[in-house]
């Protein structure tokens, strides 16, 4: 079935184009997820602190945060890339390439992570918060030692979800010359009428999704 030389042909693309893009994808994804987790966590902390049913409700502060989060989320990611390019240039020194893609990806993923973590924290039983209050825990301690502790499985599941979502989003990073599997699938595969590249990269994306999901599920189960 498979014509002679197909594997050589396949290998040529795999080795030259797909393989390097796997690394690029993994680097972009892991770095941007790491930073957006941290950023999202901090935002979620304050959303939970000042939120309407929060520990120290503060309408105006919550409004500001909510506004920030919502406004970033309203940018289609490709447009976000352009909108923050002056900042990207300041921070990273360039607006092209892998490193320049990480900042907008992080910025886009941060409010998403913030909502994911906020939603998880909101699910914590209020009686536990009261119990912590009863022995004089500070708001910081209540969030960190009670709410976060109790919702770790939820946060893990949410982070798994977010990671897979942003794996697909790294495709957009191709726009700023960052490469990545999604961009390869799009440019070298789909647009070049090259099904070999297209399906190989989608297959690799699929394997990545599976691995992320499995790792997430394993962590969830282990941690539960």
């Amino acid at each position, binding site marked *: 079935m498979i014509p002679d030389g197909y594997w050589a042909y396949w290998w*040529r*693309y795999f080795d*030259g*184009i797909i393989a390097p893009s796997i690394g690029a994808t993994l680097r972009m994804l892991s770095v941007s997820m790491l930073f957006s987790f941290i950023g999202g966590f901090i935002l979620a902390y304050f959303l939970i602190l000042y939120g309407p049913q929060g520990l120290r409700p503060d309408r105006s502060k919550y409004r500001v945060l909510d506004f920030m989060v919502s406004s970033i989320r309203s940018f289609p990611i*490709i447009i976000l890339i*352009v909108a923050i*390019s002056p900042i990207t*240039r300041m921070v990273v*020194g*360039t*607006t*092209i*390439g892998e490193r*320049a893609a990480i900042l907008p990806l992080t910025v886009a993923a941060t409010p998403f992570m913030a909502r994911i973590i906020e939603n998880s924290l909101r699910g914590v039983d209020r009686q536990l918060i009261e119990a912590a209050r009863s022995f004089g825990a500070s708001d910081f301690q209540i969030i960190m030692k009670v709410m976060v502790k109790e919702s770790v499985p939820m946060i893990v599941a949410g982070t798994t979800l977010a990671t897979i979502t942003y794996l697909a989003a790294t495709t957009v990073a*191709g*726009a*700023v*010359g960052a*490469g990545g599997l999604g*961009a390869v699938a*799009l*440019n*070298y595969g*789909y*647009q*070049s*009428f*090259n099904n070999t590249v297209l399906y190989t990269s989608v297959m690799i994306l699929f394997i990545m999704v599976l691995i992320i999901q499995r790792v997430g599920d394993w962590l969830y189960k282990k941690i539960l």
Partner: protein
Amino acid sequence: GKSSGPAGKNLKLGCLAISERMVQWIKEGLTPLGYNVEIVMFDANQLPAVALKDGNVDGIIANHRQWMQTFNKENNCNLEMVQPYLFRSFYAIYSLKYKKVADIPQNAQIVIPGDPTNLSRSLIILREAGLITLKDKTGHFYTVLDIKDNPKKIKLIEAEITHTARSIQDADAVIATAYHISAKTKIDPRDVVFEDPQNKDYPLGLIVRSEDVNSAWVKEAVKIYRSEQYRAKFNEVYKGQYFLFD
């Protein structure tokens, strides 16, 4: 067309962001003739052509002829670009830092469009500029895999086509169209480092299914875009960015 065939004088014309105005003017010309024209805008990729092939639209102004021919081969279809062609774009190497190709240093970063036809075209530009040499083409397009020599160890960055112009500040040089350069930067589009010698080989125009080439509406459309009025509007809007065929 199948359902909304031109016989019924209902037309759907596809365009991209860059060609929206051109199609709009055609619509304005066809409407008084009793045509009911709907414009569908696509993102830049092969979907307009697919839609045309499938009969979901009746004509598009989106891709250049070279690409269309590849598409025909890949999809076993017969799209045809109506002659005379409408316009051509102007590709060139632009730079904020360097005036001549020879100035481009070792390890320079050059941003090029990442979509396959423009990537292929850019590689040829670079070859013509003497920056690289290429092997024989293996597929429809040249890819970075086809680079044979790269004496200056130039680093090619494949970006989205509009982003090449946007990133001119950050790169040593970019390959972009005059349209993008003049829209995004203050650079005079004629102020090139190296002009693409193939510019004339990439005509753009109204693409239709081959069976429609001689249909009445196409004839009307050609008449419209060849009219002085149309050309005047075109030159006013796209002056120095796109060039009409005479």
